[in-house]
């Protein structure tokens, strides 16, 4: 089952969804229009809450009651500046960017190194390593939070971004190795043999020959790991105690607790927290879809 999904993911990274085999399925025109109407309706259900969030952040509480679905005809940007300042979003966004970027790079780098021997070497050690890493895909890791908490506490890393970075880097390894190893396996072995004949050692073969070829998979792993790390709430709520170290999801609980009765401001805060990922989605739809289809969305 895993193998099936892996093959699909691997085939998908380049074209996301491979061009459908030419043929259009038959169906009456009326049927097709009806189906399209349903699909649009569902799209509206999917998007409406997010659109209301943005739209109502620009309207007053009064307008929301009078016209639940009204548009912000005279947009009121005040809620944003107020939310930005009172919500300390600048600090939270900085922390989120730092923690997410460094941890994803760290876990991708470690996984790349490990994926190469796991995909290629035939010694039993690497087979065992692979199954241990891949078991991490099914482990409810958050249940290990108490020992992790005590460990980081004894190292003085509570409320320290480095503690979270290390935890997230470790959490990203199973998925990253899973995707990267299946990519390394697709490369022809002759490449390595050719490099060896030319006198390249394992490191140069890896760095100069193989790495440039797995770039699309690296992009998928980086972008796709970015999302859950950026959005995570559970580890920050336990491991970050000091408000200056909060990430966006955790900072938002503080903000929302204080301002939820002020609807425009609450909506503005939620919108601010959402914008960075929507931007990411716009530039990297392909990688996110590829990652999701790799079957390990969570």
């Amino acid at each position, binding site marked *: *089952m895993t193998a099936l999904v892996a093959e699909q993911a691997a085939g998908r990274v380049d074209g996301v*969804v491979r061009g*459908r085999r030419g*043929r259009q399925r038959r169906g009456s025109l009326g049927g097709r229009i009806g189906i399209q109407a*349903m*699909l649009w309706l*569902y*799209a509206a*259900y*999917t998007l409406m*809450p*997010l659109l209301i969030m943005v739209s109502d952040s620009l309207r007053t509480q009064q307008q*929301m009651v009078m016209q*639940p*679905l009204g548009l912000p005809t005279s947009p009121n940007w005040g809620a944003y500046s107020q939310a930005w300042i009172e919500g300390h979003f600048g600090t939270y966004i900085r922390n989120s960017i730092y923690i997410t970027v460094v941890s994803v790079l760290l*876990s991708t780098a470690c*996984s790349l*190194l*490990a994926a*190469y021997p796991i995909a*290629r*070497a*035939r010694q039993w*050690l690497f087979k065992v*390593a692979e199954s*241990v*890493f891949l078991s*991490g895909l*099914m*482990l*409810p890791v958050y*249940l*290990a*939070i*108490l020992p*992790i908490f005590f460990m980081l506490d004894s190292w003085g890393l509570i409320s320290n971004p480095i503690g979270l970075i290390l935890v997230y*880097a*470790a959490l990203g390894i*199973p998925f990253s190795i899973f995707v990267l190893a299946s990519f390394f396996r697709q490369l022809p072995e002759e490449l*390595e*043999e050719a490099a060896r004949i030319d006198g390249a050692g*394992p490191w140069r073969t890896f760095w100069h020959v193989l790495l440039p070829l797995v770039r699309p998979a690296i992009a998928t792993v980086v972008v796709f790991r970015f*999302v859950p790390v950026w*959005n995570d*709430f*559970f580890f920050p709520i336990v491991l970050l105690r000091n408000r200056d170290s909060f990430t966006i*999801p955790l900072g*938002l609980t503080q903000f*929302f607790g204080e301002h*939820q009765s002020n609807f425009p401001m609450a909506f503005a805060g*939620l919108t601010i927290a*959402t914008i960075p*990922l929507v931007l990411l*989605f716009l530039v990297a*739809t392909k990688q*996110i*879809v590829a990652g*999701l*289809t790799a079957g390990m*969305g969570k």
Partner: protein
Amino acid sequence: MKTSARPRWRATGPGPGLGAGMLFLLPAAALFAVFILVPLVQAIGYSFFTWQGAHRIGFAALSNYTALFTKRPYTDEVMPALGHNLLLFAGAMVFQNSVGLVVAALLHRFNRLRRMFQTLYTLPYLVSPIVIGYLWSLLLSPLFGPVNNLLKQVGLGDLAHPWLGDPKTAIWMIALITSWQWLGFPILLFGAAMGGIAPELDEAASIDGATGRQRFFHITLPLLTPAIGTIAILTFIGAMESFPIPFAIGGSTGNPAGSTDVMSLLFYRTAFESGSGGYIGVASAIATLLFLFIFGVALVARRLMDRVERGLVR
């Protein structure tokens, strides 16, 4: 190509070789061991000790486990919380995965529009679940919430309801909200699986006079069994681990009246919010049981799936 003229490579095989390979493996193995494997084993170990604050004061054997089923408040909390998790799983299977299967099947007919719709449906997945929880708590709020106001304006005021304030509806709302967020996931996975089905099968059945519905139920659906299994297992894990959306909506105590309490909230409360001594042992017992339950069910389901898959091939 390997020929007998190059025996040296046969011996070592492809890859970096044992020594260099171990070096390549080292950073990932160290991170994984220190931050995942060792803590998981430790967490299980914690559950067999009596704790005073953050200190182990003695061996407890199974008393932390028996406390879960004999001592208050745990006796009142464990089964309802577990029930809510299972309800979230059932809700996701119906509202998210079944709907997702239908949508994926409908999308399969369209070439050009499919990618756009897939992208639209996937958008909520990107938004942090904590944002989703708060967003819906505003949308569903009884007084100013757009949902109730909209119902009133279109003359369905009788249907207006404190959706999240009523213990009877709150957990169902969480199931719906979670499904709303994750719908893109089954659509993409089913879409990918349908793309892998040879169109000739469908065409042949079509020539033999099978209707669209017959083709779906007798060809597409059986061939989707592996995908359905994968999605069910991942949905199960997700539902058992559900935390941020219930937290955003009901706080750490599962308001209203514990009706949105789930296992991870119970674990979180016991571990980090409970004032009583000895809580670390009990929290670890919860974690261990939950761990065994999730991992055990996922493993058994996977075995079953493999058997079904083999049956399909034959």
